[in-house]
Structures are given as C-alpha cells and as structure tokens.
C-alpha cells in the first residue's frame, strides 16, 4: 500500500469552506506534481475531498496570535492533510 497525500488550504477553519490553495504528493509514483503546475484546485471544498474518498488525518490548530503580533500575516492559516492508500 502506498500513500497519496493531498493538502488543502481553506478559507476558514471550517472543513466545508472553499479551497484557496493546494498541494499533492504522490507516493505511488504515477504522477509528478510540482510547484505552479495548475491553476484550478482539485476540489472546491474540504468536504468535497471527503466525498471523493480522501481521509482527513491532520488539521491546523486554532492558535491565538502572539501578543504584539496580532496584525502580522504569515503562513496560510487553515491547512488540512488528506490521504488515500493505493
């Protein structure tokens, strides 16, 4: 069994919110995804990925901003990791 990993970055912390960014890593070797290879996300929301058989295994935590850095922006906030096994 080999793992395929899909990472979706969503608009809010809700799993059914819109996909804003994405990455795909393919342990089967059948595809060779890389940076900047697509302008269209594979799914419109996190739940759409679930309906297609992807299993959620990690979601970013909701962390309060560090004091004094409430207005700073940094990494994408709402990151969800999914897997499929083939």
């Amino acid at each position, binding site marked *: 069994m080999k793992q395929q990993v899909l990472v979706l970055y969503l608009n809010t912390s809700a799993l059914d919110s819109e996909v*804003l*960014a994405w*990455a795909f890593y393919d342990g089967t070797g059948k595809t060779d995804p*890389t*940076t900047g*290879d697509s302008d269209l996300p594979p799914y419109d929301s996190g739940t759409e990925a679930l309906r297609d058989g992807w299993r959620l295994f990690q979601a970013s935590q909701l962390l309060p901003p560090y004091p004094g850095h409430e*207005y700073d922006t*940094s990494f994408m*906030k*709402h990151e969800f990791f999914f897997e499929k096994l083939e």
Partner: protein
Amino acid sequence: MTTTAPLLSSVEVARFVANGFHRMDAVVPAELNEQAIGVLDAGIPHVPYGTPVAKAFEEGSFARRLIEVPAVAGAIRSLVGPDPTVDHHAVHIREPHEGSAQPLHGDAIIDTRADAFDVQLMYYPQEVTGTMGGTLSVPGSHLRRTNESDTGRYQNLRGQTRLTCPAGTVVLLHHGIWHGGRRNDSDIRRYMFKIRFNPTVPQVRLWDVADLDDPRIPQELSRYFPWCEHATARLEIFNRIKLWRALTGDASFDIDYWATRVANRPGRAA
C-alpha cells in the same frame, strides 16, 4: 542614476503596494533583447553587495542600458528613489525539460521592514510561453512574514500568476513576494536576468504625486486576492494602510476605518 524618465502615478504605486509587483510588458526595445542572450551567456560581471548603480554597471553596458530604458528607469526611481545601490544580480536559466520547479519562496531572509523595501527587477529577453516555466508569483503575498522557502509546501494558489509574456518584459517585485521558477516543459532554454536594488533615500513620495487624492487609491489598496483567507485579507489591508502611510508621510490615511478604529483609546496615553 539620473533620469528624465516617466515616474509612476500614485494609483500605480498603490497597485504595487497591494500586488507586490509592477509589470511592464515588452518595454525593452528589440535591439537590446536581441543582444541579451549572448550577453547573459557570457555573464554579467559580479559586483560587491551595495555597489552604486553607476559603479556596478558601466555607461553603455548592457545592464546599464536595460535600466535606463525610460519606463524602467522611471519605475525604479518611483519605488526606490534616485541612486539606489545594487544588492546583487543574477542570471537565472531554466533548462529544457528540467525536472522540477523551484519551491515557492521569498528571496534573502525574512524581512520585517515596515517603512522600506527593496525592489527586484526581473527581465525576460525572450517570449515566455506557458510551457517554458515562466516565474510563478503570488500577487499580494509580499507582506506575509515567512522565511525563504518555508512556503515550499504550497504548490498552487488560486489567483497565482504563471508568467507568460512577450520579449522585453520587465517586472519589478517587492522583496517579499512569494515566487519561484516553474518547471520548463518546453524545448527552449528560458532566461531571466535579475537585479535587486536597495534604496538609499527614505521611500517617501518618490513618484509623481499629482494624483495623490485619486479615489482609485483606496480601491487599489483594498483589493482581495483569491488565495487569501477572508479574515486574513482584512489584516492585509490594514498592513497596506500602514505601508501607504509610511510611503506618503500621511499618518491619518485610512480605509474603511480599519486603522483608526483599533487605535482609538480616548483619554489614554500612548
């Protein structure tokens, strides 16, 4: 660097503050583009970090003629002012069918300057088609505080720019913008020449400010980008307000009360 080149307008600089880049398609004359690949293959002489432009690039040299193209010179002056120094320069080549893309990154190291920025010139001497792996960049990402390739996990973002352009295109980038060379799936070697400029004067009202009250300025600064979380997008606007205040010297500038509201503490000392 002295120039009588056309300066950017306030609306154009506001667009730069929101987008993190200023793009000029086919701005470099064909005569220079035709010489470029030979010159870039031969190599542009290395210069120490922080060398004044006039010392870094001799009068009449290819690089000097490139940055003296009037529209290019005017845009550089509008953003980093007269007499910037050359931080460094580099020729980037993506070989045909090169295996992978660069990870998404910001250049140098995390850079938290709130009232100053460097500009990176990227010059494309040849037409760049979709399969040639033109530079990927993420409009509006430049104010996010991330370090170099720590963003490498992100492969694609809604609204990203996968650059295609005619020969002679120049893009001026804010130092913080997320970008990367894409995989070149074509049979053609792709060239890009980069120069990073450091300002040597305060970056305040360096452009043509005749239109400083144009109502399109707050519209430009209020832009939402498709990749940006709705909540974080409000913080991006707040941070653009702060940068616009620094660039204009107008500490009262605001949009939709975002900055004023959270600073209102009646009767309290700073």
